[in-house]
């Protein structure tokens, strides 16, 4: 099997269903197609250059952003507005079809994850996989997340940064 699409922590494998491997191009397509996408940014995205890529992606596609853990702080320091939630809190809201979303415009239909701790993200993605059929999940970390609907593969920093670059170039 292709090493790039075994879950980064291989035992995360949960059953026959596996995430679709996506390229940056496909990821962008998913964002374009979505009506109410949301980006969820975790503490591993606080460091550079991931933070800048994240900011640019957010801006490029006008994505509302939820920051998990204490990630809010670095965005706030840059004057960028995000909604702080615990990763389990935002996941809990996302699984409720009645929730109106962070902009109050209705539940999101696509959630893009970046920078959350692998295993807790994996658990959150499992929640959404099982209990939020109304949402597609996409992870753009450098690790393959089999519980997502779509995920970047496992790769090294260099390749990842190229992937992220492509997510916000015109």
């Amino acid at each position: 099997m292709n090493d790039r699409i075994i879950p980064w922590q291989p035992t995360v494998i949960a059953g026959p269903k596996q995430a679709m491997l996506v390229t940056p191009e496909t990821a962008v397509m998913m964002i374009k197609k979505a009506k109410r996408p949301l980006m969820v940014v975790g503490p591993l995205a606080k460091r550079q250059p991931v933070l800048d890529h994240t900011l640019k992606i957010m801006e490029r596609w006008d994505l509302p952003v939820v920051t998990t853990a204490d990630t809010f702080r670095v965005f706030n320091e840059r004057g960028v507005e995000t909604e702080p939630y615990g990763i389990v809190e935002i996941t809990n809201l996302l699984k409720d079809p009645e929730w109106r979303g962070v902009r109050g415009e209705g539940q999101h239909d696509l959630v893009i994850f970046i920078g959350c701790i692998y295993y807790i993200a994996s658990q959150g993605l499992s929640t959404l996989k099982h209990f939020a059929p109304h949402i597609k999940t996409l992870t753009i970390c450098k690790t393959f997340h089999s519980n997502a609907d779509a995920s970047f593969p496992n790769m090294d920093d260099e390749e990842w940064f190229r992937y992220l670059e492509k997510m916000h170039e015109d």
Partner: protein
Amino acid sequence: MAPESKKAKDLKGDFWDAKNIQISIGKVITEEEPPEEVRGPKPMPHVTDLRSWDMKLLERYEPFYAPFCDMCCLCTYGKCELLGKKGACGIDAATQQARTVLLACLIGTAAHAGHARHLLEHLIEKLGEDHEIDLGMNVDIEAPITRTVMGKRPRTLGDLREVMDYVEEQMSHLLSACHTGQEGDSKDFESKAFHAGLMDDLAREAADLAQIVALDLPKGDEDAPLIELGFGTIDTEKPVVLCIGHNVLPGADIVDYLDEKGLEEDVEVCGICCAAIDITRYNDAAKVVGPLSKQLRFIRSGVADVVVVDEQCVRTDVLEEALKNRSAVIATTDKMCLGLPDMTDEDPDRIVRDLIEGNIKGALILDPEKVGEVAVKTAIKLAPERKPLKKLPDVEEIIELASECTDCGWCQRACPNSLPVMDAVKKAAEGDLSQLEEMAVEELCYTCGRCEQECERGIPIVSMVTKAGERRVKDEKYKIRAGRGPAQDVEIRRVGAPIVLGDIPGVVAFVGCSNYPAGGKDVALMAKEFLERNYIVVTTGCGAMSIGEYRDEDGQTLYEKYGGEFDAKGLVNMGSCVSNAHISGAAIKIANIFAQKPLEGNFEEIADYILNRVGACGVAWGAYSQKAAAIATGVNRWGIPVVLGPHGSKYRRLFLGRADDEEKWKLNDLRTGEVIDGEPAPEHLLYAAENREEVTVMIAKLCIRPTDTPKGRQMKLSNYIDLHRKYFGTIPDDIDKFIRTEKDIPIVYKKDVMKILEEKNWKPRKVPKEPSLMEMEKG
């Protein structure tokens, strides 16, 4: 048809009723002591008796499931995939998660119940069933959980048997429900998990009470002695006996044997995990190596001549690992026999000989006194010849081993915390051991050994980490206050009002295991943060050890800096895992002593009181075990919120509130009989956080309660805002939810908060006098 315990229906012969009655010829004479207990509505509740309370909790704090696997593999119809599908038995994914959670809680409860029963019967055998339960002058309410749940006070060790009978019977019913084709509703499974948690609470209380009174452990003593803690405190020149696990009995008999033979100075006795805590409660000369996370590292160090294992949280490969260094292994309980020959009935000297000559791989000795003798004698004989084994591969060898690395990177992928293991190994190959050292000293690595298992070259990474850390082992000398046992009634009387009214901003309990996302220091830093802020900080078990393994800027451990009293700024080590019972116990005592709520058979009223008024929060930052799941679930049923570290998400289930749904927070003010708007306090019942910064802020928030006085609320909100500013940079955006009237606003933040309130179109609301979830009509 709830299963009907004999005890509730048919009380003849049970101690509850019979205790005050003497049967004489033809006449019944009651003792002079008045019947002190008012019996509440539900003594010895059966599986379904507290279901209505559970459903109130579950409506507000809905179960949040994160399946760890898409499949169910419990029956031979299976495996069934449950991703959007039902299994062959009809079960769906949510129900299956809840079932698995119940199963985990029951395994945890059984660990404590088995431990409690074992201790109890052993101690009764030694001291008789009439041995009194007396915690001394300052503790009248010696068993708040038992009183509340059983409906009666236990007066002797023998009375605790009835507690265990009840616990065991309830567990059997609950485990039954996990069978294929029984419970079909996730909330009903959660109600059962709550019941399992409550049984766990009872079992822990029984276990700790029994050992406190029978072994004369500290009885709520705020000045319990400071104990030596850390690798560096062990004198490796002496024979070393290491006890791993949770059962005090073999360890106690080891120190007794040493005392009896006058060998106290000649042999080092040390422990890992709760056995360490409890042995040092029994005898303060014993030493604590450290929490669970030290286990493989210490075994690999070869320092221990004899490894005595009892039960719970012991590495299951302890025999294999110990044999690598020719340490002798003695297994001591039915819980962990390790395939060893049963030598219980053999002559101690023969066992010593067999161990030393390697005639047996290890010995199973089910008599703790014999363990005492055999362990000491073996250690003394073995130590001289094991001298050369008390060292690890030297540095050159490490570099050599490290150079085998093929850069495959699977060690990092296998590492639970994705530590940069490969990078550290590669650095080591270049002669730089600093990264390996950091993994050891900073406790980033908790020596689970998965990296080694994954390594295609079989590089012994944990040994290398251990070796790299050795240089600084001498620095690993700390202090921990011996587990003091319960809070005293007099302390509760002192802090009851300030806690309920909010003047003491909260009680924060750091408990549980060492499955930390980034080392144990986080726990110490959190404890420090809340101690400095006037909270009462309570702790037990591995958490208590992790707190001790940190020195502040003055070079002191927190135990040296803060006293052990149950009061603001107190750092209260209550003891081992089973001592966690005293944490719920303290909350219950507040309801009883401060608020005069009767305990007996009165679970729901007490839990409702605690949920709405006692600003306590449990923190199990490194929770890994089924016991921790049971403890948290038990604590939750009493209305106390618990936060977990990120690994806690793998328990599959949390209880999360929805601050955005006002309907969920309505309260009945019992004083006025009016149902009024409430606040999300506490907002969650069981929460998992990603990092220390997040959880610190969350803890402060979770200490808020509807009954806080304005002054108390100001204090709590000050802490919440301070910490939010510290870690998030702003005043929290949900501050408006917790301000009932302007009087609640902390003075220093008045201006900023007012601004937020205006933006949010905030309106003042009623402050409930006696907030409750009881007697509310639905909707």
